[in-house]
């Protein structure tokens, strides 16, 4: 069993639904983004196009972030999900420097979206559980997946551009899509073996 994701770039409309649903699910503090959408313009007038690249932790098979962690706070679950034990993290940020996909964020101090006004009721309920002085990242919505649900970014994608499943099962939807559509990973030359694939447009 190895959890993985395929993101269909043909379907992605760059709506930021994944980014917002992730924020809502995890209550991540300002400056911490488990999921993001990168946008870029290519070409020259009149042949131009805006390209979207939704990104999140790639849950590498050989994660450099785990190797450099001095306290083993960064670790890999048996199902392939790379996670952080906040209780062990010393906040050295070596994992941020080691992650070739820059998908880790340092939560340096407790902060809120409306500085000077204190936490909103939502932040009080969702954000204050996150420890300050530690690094944070996506964990494929581990609690949701264990409860039999899809990760928030997958469940809430309005364009149905995300597929989540077992990469080790050749009959799973995600495996078939990657095979049939020629799914690829980012920076394969690094040999990290990401579990997030992109389906070309």
């Amino acid at each position: 069993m190895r959890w993985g994701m395929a993101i269909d770039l043909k379907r992605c409309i760059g709506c930021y639904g994944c980014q917002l649903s992730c924020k809502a699910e995890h209550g991540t503090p300002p400056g911490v983004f488990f999921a993001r959408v990168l946008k870029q313009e290519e070409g020259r007038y009149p042949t131009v196009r805006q390209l979207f690249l939704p990104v999140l932790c790639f849950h590498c098979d050989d994660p450099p972030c785990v190797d450099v962690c001095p306290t083993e706070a960064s670790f890999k679950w048996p199902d392939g999900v790379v996670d952080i034990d906040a209780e062990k993290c010393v906040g050295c940020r070596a994992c941020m420097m080691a992650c070739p996909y820059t998908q880790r964020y340092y939560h340096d101090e407790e902060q809120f979206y409306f500085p000077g006004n204190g936490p909103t009721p939502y932040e009080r309920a969702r954000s204050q559980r996150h420890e300050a002085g530690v690094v944070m990242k996506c964990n494929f919505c581990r609690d949701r997946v264990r409860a039999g649900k899809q990760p928030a970014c997958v469940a809430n994608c309005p364009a149905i551009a995300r597929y989540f499943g077992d990469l080790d099962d050749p009959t799973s939807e995600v495996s078939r899509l990657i095979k049939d559509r020629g799914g690829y990973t980012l920076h394969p030359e690094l040999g990290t073996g990401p579990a997030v694939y992109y389906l070309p447009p």
Partner: protein
Amino acid sequence: MSVTSGRYEQLIQDLRAEVRPQREWIERQGLLLIVGHFLSGVAAGTWLFSLVFHFPAGLAVAYAIAALSAAAHLGFLGRPARFWKMWHARSSWIARGFVGLTLFLGGGVLYLIPIFLSASPWQSGSLIAQAGYFLALAGMILLLFYKGFVYSSSKGVPFWTSPILPALYLAYALRGGVAALLVICSFNGINLDSSALGLLELWIGISAAVMILFYLGVMSGSSPIEQYSVRELLRGRAAVSFYVGTLLVGLGVPIGIGLTGLGAPLSLGAVALVGLASVIGDFFVKYSIAKAGIYRSLTSSPHWRDKSAAVAGVPPLSVKP
């Protein structure tokens, strides 16, 4: 606008940019890490050359510098109270550095106490002192090497992932040790074979200069992100510290004075200047290289650009530094 929202705005600006500079290991608390790395290198180098030249005062200074380095490292951590958890990891160079610092501080005190304290419960040649000597020696070796490998194992910052960097940081640690000894000797008016130390300093200084040039040469011929980092070093955010701190003060002054001193013996003041300039240069080389660090770009991944742009019917663009 509060400081918090200022940091937030900075991050958002960085995330929107094509290339994102690393700020965690250089700005605000991050500066303490650079200070810690610098001090640990100087401490290890000073210990090594104090042993070579049988100079107990140098050993004591090296120990004090290492203690300061430990404090700087702790000050950098987001959760310093958990530092002891670093014993567990085996593959992490930061953990190895922590082990090295612990061995050095633990062993060093066992070795130094009988040297400086006549009423010590154990003597200099005793088993405890010998154990301290070897523990400190093992710690010193780890301290000499770990920094370079911490950077070179950072795959997220291509400018650092070079095998030259550990060699460069080792050279600078050795140089920092010689420089610290020169400063200690000249300020105390001690004649500790200063001509030999001066020659050693000159040799390591020239080696470091060659290594920096080699490093920059290799990096400027690498990927666009590494080239961008080289530009940051030569013309961007890190340029002032690189030209003034690393090249002029750190290499120009010591090599210049060292070469003039080949003909005639240097005064104590000149020796002190060489040492101080070298130590300052040691700090700024670490500062400049850390500041020029740029995260790997995701949108520059060849697969994504080529495949996406191919469908769009437009030629893929290269990352513009």
